[in-house]
Structure formats: C-alpha cells, structure tokens
C-alpha cells in the first residue's frame, strides 16, 4: 500500500542551528556529581567494601603480628601489612565504577543520556571519578584506623598520603576492567564477578612476607605480578623511607595495571554506544 509517489523534497536546515553545548569539563563534573549523589542515596553499595577492608586489617594485624615478624628488624607489622589491606580495597573498590554504569544501563538512563549531546568521555569518566572518590574515602578510612592502631610511618604524614595516592592510582586505573565488562555485558552479575577475577592477584604476591622469603612457583608468580611492585613501593615508604627506585617501579606497575583496562574500556564504550 502507501505508494510513495511524492517527490522527496525537503528544505535544508539552516546552519545557524549550530548548537551550543556544555564544556567537557563541566559535563564531567556534573556526571561525577550525579554519581556521588546516587551513591549517597544508596549507601549499601559501598558500606560492605569499607567494612571488609578494615576487618582484614584487624585480622592480619592480630593474627600475624606476633608470629611472623622476624624479618622486620624491629619495624611494625602493621606498617608491613597495611599496604595489602589498601591494595585489596583498591581492587575490590575498582568495581564500583562498573556497577554505576550497569545501574544506568539497566534503568534505561544510559539511553536517555545518549539521546542528549553528551560527550562519550563524560559518560565514562563520571562513574570512574565517582568511584575514585569513594576509593579515596575508603583508603583514608583504612589509613585512619591504622593510625589509631598505632601506625608509624618512616616518611611521616607525607608517606601516608603517598600510600593513599598509590591506592587511588591502582584502583582508578583498574576501574577500567569493571567498566569494560559493564559496557560490554550490561549485566550486574558479570560486572561484580569481574572485580573478583583479580582478587587472587593480591595473594599471588609477597602478601604476608617479603618476596625474598618466598619459594618456588609462588615466587615466580610474585615476580611477574605487578601488584608485588606496588606493595614493595608502599612498604618501603612506610618502613624505610623514600626509595625512589621502588617508587618508580611501583608507578610503572600501576601504569601497566591502568593503561590496559583504560584502552579496553574505550573500546567497550565504542561498542556500547555505536548503534547496531
């Protein structure tokens, strides 16, 4: 039916319609803020993470501090184990950004945003920055508790801030994995699963003793595991002082753990937002 016999004529839209849009930095700030507001209204999503990291810190300190301190030359086991707690918090916290994205995909708001002139970068960085903020809160909380437990840092308060910085860097870089899974699958289950996939990384390393005390396959695994170098850097900051070689290695490890997920997440964003 409906024979389309009419000629297809149309007035070409005028150029003056050149649309205004929001500057990118403002979009990013706004999207970050929005995600923080959402987090504040759904606190259940972050509280378990906070509790668990502090809980681990207590357990490790209480159960291991007496037994295994011979290698510590009188330094505190708390300062030795604290970085483990922070790194595991970073890895588990890195899943937050992905969860925020899945939430929006599921409730349909993601599509609604796609129908506006929003920049794809703002769509990605809003949740990532909000996740980073939560990670900073979480790490600061762990550090605060550790200080109450008598943490002493060889490099003073600046060192504690540096450790916090490492935690943030690691967690934010790693957030790319959760984000990628979120964008590719749109599934909450897959996304929270993904943040556990790298949990073993925190154990296949010099978790409880220095790397030179490890043996066999665990030692090999630890040498290849970038987390080992982050641990080494943060431990040296708390126990010895500013060891720039270790810090440099730690930063490189963070970069490796961050850049790869970042690239994947950009590709995943393209997959999600390209029309099919």
């Amino acid at each position, binding site marked *: *039916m*409906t024979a*389309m016999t*009419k000629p*297809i004529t*149309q*007035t*070409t*839209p*005028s150029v003056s*319609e050149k*649309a*205004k*849009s*929001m500057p990118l930095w*403002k*979009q990013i700030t*706004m999207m970050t803020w*929005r995600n923080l*507001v*959402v987090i504040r*209204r*759904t606190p259940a999503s972050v509280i378990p993470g906070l509790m668990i990291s502090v809980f681990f810190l207590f357990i490790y300190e209480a159960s291991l501090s007496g037994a295994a301190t011979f290698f510590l030359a009188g330094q505190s086991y708390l300062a030795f184990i604290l970085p483990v707690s922070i790194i595991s918090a970073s890895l588990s916290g890195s899943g937050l950004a992905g969860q925020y994205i899945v*939430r*929006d995909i599921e*409730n*349909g*708001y*993601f*599509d*609604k*945003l*796609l*129908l*506006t*002139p*929003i920049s794809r970068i703002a769509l990605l960085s809003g949740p990532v920055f909000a996740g980073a903020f939560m990670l900073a809160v979480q790490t600061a909380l762990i550090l605060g508790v550790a200080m109450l437990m008598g943490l002493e840092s060889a490099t003073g308060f600046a060192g504690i801030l540096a450790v916090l910085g490492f935690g943030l860097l690691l967690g934010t870089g790693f957030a790319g994995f959760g984000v990628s899974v979120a964008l590719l699958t749109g599934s909450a289950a897959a996304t929270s699963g993904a943040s556990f996939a790298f949990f073993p990384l925190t154990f296949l390393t010099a978790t409880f003793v220095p790397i030179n005390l490890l043996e066999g396959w665990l030692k090999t695994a630890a040498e290849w595991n970038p987390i080992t170098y982050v641990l080494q850097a943060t431990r040296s900051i708390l126990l010895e002082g500013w060891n720039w070689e270790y810090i440099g290695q730690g930063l490189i490890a963070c970069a490796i753990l961050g850049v790869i997920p970042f690239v994947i997440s950009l590709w995943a964003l393209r997959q999600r937002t390209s*029309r*099919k």
Partner: protein
Amino acid sequence: MSSRQIIVENLKKRYEGDFYAVNDVSFLVNAGEIFGFLGPNGAGKSTTVTMLTTLALPTSGKAHVGGYDIVHQAQQVRRIAGVALQDIGLDPVMKSMELLVTQGQLFGMSRMDAIKRAKELLELVRLSEFTDRPVGKYSGGMRRRLDLAMALVHKPEILFLDEPTTGLDPASRRDVWAEVRRLNVQEGMTIFLTTQYLEEADELADRIAIINAGKIAVEGQPAELKAALGAESINVTFGDNPTVEKARDALQSMVDRAQIDRKTLRLYLQNAAYAIPNVVNKLNELQLQPLSLTLTQPTLDDVFLQVTGQRFEEETEDEAPVEAVA
C-alpha cells in the same frame, strides 16, 4: 528552523536470523502534523522509533528527521528531536528537578535557565508538588508525565512519543492528549506518536499509519480510512459458527462486503439502517436465529480488522477466527 518533516523510505530492520522487525516501511509526516503510528504488540512500532531517534541503525533504507539523515547526522537529529521511549529511562533515586536540570544543561542551557525551564515543565505536567520524592517512588502515570517533560526540555521541533498513555488512568490520558494538542498547535511541533489505542489515534492524529508484522498496512486520515470502509455495518451475532457461515452465504450478495468475526457477521453497506428489514426477512426465511443485531458506525477498529484480518486488541500470535470476504 529545520524542515520539521519526517521522511521514511524503505526502512528495514533485521534482527538475529532472518527476522525483519520492520520490513520496508515508507511514510511521510508533514511539518506540524500529529501522526499516529498504530499497531498490535510486536508490530515494529518501537523498532521504528528507535531507528528514527538514532538509537538503532536501520539495516537498509533511508530516513530524514527534520531534514537530517538519521544515519549520518545523528547529532543534529538529537538536537531537534524530543523522545519519550516506551521504556521510561529515569534513574529511580534521582529527583525530578535533578533529572530535568541535568537534561537542560547537557543541551547547553546555563544552570539558571535549566532550573527555570525545569520549573516550567514540572508545572506543565503537574508534578511541582512532588519534587522531593525520588522518581522511583512515583506512580506509573507520574513517571510517564515526567518522561514527557524530559523530552520537552530542549524545546524540540519534532516529538517522538512511544505509547505515551499506556498505563495512564483516563484523566491522565486526557491530560496528555491535551498537552500533545497544545504542543502541536501552539508550538507547531510535529508529533510522531505510537499507540495501541485506536481511539487515541482517532482523537489526536491528523493522519495515521497502521503497521502490522513490520509492514505498513494502510496510511491516511482517520476519517478517510473509515469512509473507505463503506460507511456503516450491521452486526448479527449467532450461537455457533456454522450458522454464521450459512448466514454469510445467504446475505453476501445483498451488501457491499460481509465479514465474519468470531460468531458475529458484519455486513458493510451504505444506508445500513434501511437494509435491516431485508436482512431480518432473509434470516427468517432461512430460519437462522440471531442472538443480537446491532448497527454501528465504522471505527478505526474496523479499519484495522479489514487491513489485518485481526481484531485490534488481540496479540499477533492469537489465532483469531476471522475471515475476510470481499
């Protein structure tokens, strides 16, 4: 100012396998028109809307919205089109003001302007009193109305509404109708509206198209379509199917068109009222006892029945015992 037209040419959308959800659809929506896009569940209405609003790519075919190509000028289409999708996409923990202001700012308004616009729109959809409540706690109708407001934030020239009144109570439905008419008349918006309700299309639309199984079955003005059916019909209901068929065979020659719909025989003809005595006499003669006999003006429902061989309210999958006899 864009051309405010929607031009769709041979649009197709294929999903997995060889299934065409939209299969060679063409139509034209004139500037400033309310266009009703009607069809049963799964007909391809939403698929058409997602393509025209740049959320999905057509498999083949072309379409221009406001003069912009939906494939190559998606950004421009988004600027001039307002969209309220069938699945309302609103973050449940956010509040109406936040959603509207965010939307406005993303479209380039200053924060102050976005707030002003948000207040205006909340007033319009009568949600001003509910700004403290997260939208997840809104009723279905309130959420629909807010979603309509979201679609209007950037003063679009062409508005797409995918089943805007589904799930609304009659009062809210009339509100939406009034608002759609106002937007059309006062702001000159072109409105593309999908609906399951024939009365809604009848009420609002300047022109309609009926889509069925991915194809346009008929397109035109509601009045014109109804007129094409041959005015009124006499409906005679019987107790069982064989009787209906017998009656049809006997009466077919007396009318323009006879059609069986379950146990009812519909006889379409001009000046139906005058034909009633003849129909009754013929039935008496054959000793066919009708259960009821009514006279109706044609409705869009009849148009639908005629073009698709189905009653409208039924699911596509239903095997409706309907048989058209021309």
